[in-house]
């Protein structure tokens, strides 16, 4: 078993520097690598390009990096729910590349799986396809989209082991699995680091080969963005 365990978030983030490109898992605030993000805030890196489906909220997730103006460019599919983001974007301080969510997922997976590019129908005929190569297959039009290139991927899993194997919970899975192995170095933080051999080999979502470093996160706030409930009928 090849040991990927590192002591803490500090050790896990060795080698990060200004102007790097990062992938960050999560959908909204669900399944985001909280500990890694907080460490990036602490390290006060600048000029970052962040590939992440969303950009957090004003005071949580990637919003924290935005507030300190650490991010130069965001590559996302949806960036609502964040006033500071909107301000920086509309003022031109922040470079934003909005791309379809499925394209975002598949450009990550292409990097993970060694594909240089993919053809997707998403965005054909819209400004997303402007300047991009398009092509017809079987009477339908597709846009050529390239694999991402990133320095680090930061993902968050539910459980993991020192071999780097990961299991995700519920919809906190989202982009995390497709970002594993899609950057030069993949850092996984987990809620629970379990002994090697306790995870069922049939039930591992991401085999450790896609993960370079793994650590147990210290705390997880797991903030809920839209708490919606129904009343119990009496």
């Amino acid at each position, binding site marked *: 078993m090849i040991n990927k365990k590192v002591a803490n978030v500090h050790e896990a983030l060795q080698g990060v520097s200004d102007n790097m490109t990062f992938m960050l898992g999560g959908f909204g605030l669900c399944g985001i690598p909280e500990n890694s993000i907080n460490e990036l805030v602490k390290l006060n890196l600048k000029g970052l390009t962040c590939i992440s489906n969303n950009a957090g909220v004003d005071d949580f997730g990637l919003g924290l990096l935005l507030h300190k103006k650490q991010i130069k460019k965001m590559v996302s*599919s949806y960036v609502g729910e964040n006033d500071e983001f909107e301000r920086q974007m509309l003022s031109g301080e922040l470079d934003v590349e909005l791309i379809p969510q499925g394209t975002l997922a598949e450009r990550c997976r292409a990097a993970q799986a060694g594909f240089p590019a993919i053809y997707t129908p998403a965005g054909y005929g*819209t400004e997303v396809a402007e300047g991009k190569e398009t092509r017809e297959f079987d009477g339908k039009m597709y846009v050529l989209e390239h694999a991402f290139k990133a320095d680090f991927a930061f993902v968050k899993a539910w459980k993991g082991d020192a071999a780097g194997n990961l299991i995700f919970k519920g919809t906190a899975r989202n982009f995390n699995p497709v970002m594993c192995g899609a950057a030069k170095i993949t850092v996984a933080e987990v809620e629970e680091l379990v002994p090697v051999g306790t995870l069922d080999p049939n039930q591992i979502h991401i085999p450790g080969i896609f993960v370079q470093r793994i650590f147990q996160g210290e705390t997880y706030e797991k903030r809920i963005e839209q*708490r919606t409930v*129904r009343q119990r009928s009496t």
Partner: protein
Amino acid sequence: MALDKIGIAKRIAKEVQDGYYVNLGIGIPTLVANYVRDDIEVEFQSENGVLGMGPFPFDGEEDADIINAGKQTITTLPGASFFDSAMSFSMIRGKHVDLTILGAMEVSENGDIANWKIPGKMVKGMGGAMDLVASAENIIVAMMHTNKAGESKILKRCSLPLTGVGCVKKIVTNLAVLEVTDKGFKLLERAPGISVEDIKKATEGTLIIEGDIPEMSI
């Protein structure tokens, strides 16, 4: 009387058929789930990675790890599954989802839709909408017929940046049910108490009126 959001959701719910996998967008579409007939089997997919969504959780039973694409806490029904974003869009792009219901800012008579950006003002992003409209064979748009200023959102050509081209088949608004045809918007139904004349006034795009237009039953 023009329909409210619930009325639109109720009318769209009638389009949902037994055995359908359905993707619901944020806003009015989310409400549709509440009004689907309970004698048919339908499964709701959300692009953030869940199939088999149930109702909102009871107070105190929310789980931060179980949300829908609108970031709302949800529950799952027996037979549900969770998966990653790549597999989620395999379902969408691969045409495994039978019906997509989403909102729009504008729709044009050739089936174009705009719903993700107002240049210089608002840019929330397209989320999964571009993937959905590019691949779904069966798209219903839920929207208000006009904007707050009373201007039509049912247009000859969209003025906003597009989300997809030539993809919308059916539109349910607060005033009418419309079908997108080669020749323009074919008026299928009127909202209760709304006249054909009312709809004509609220529609900038080409409106096709053939014979008597029935009132919706909701």
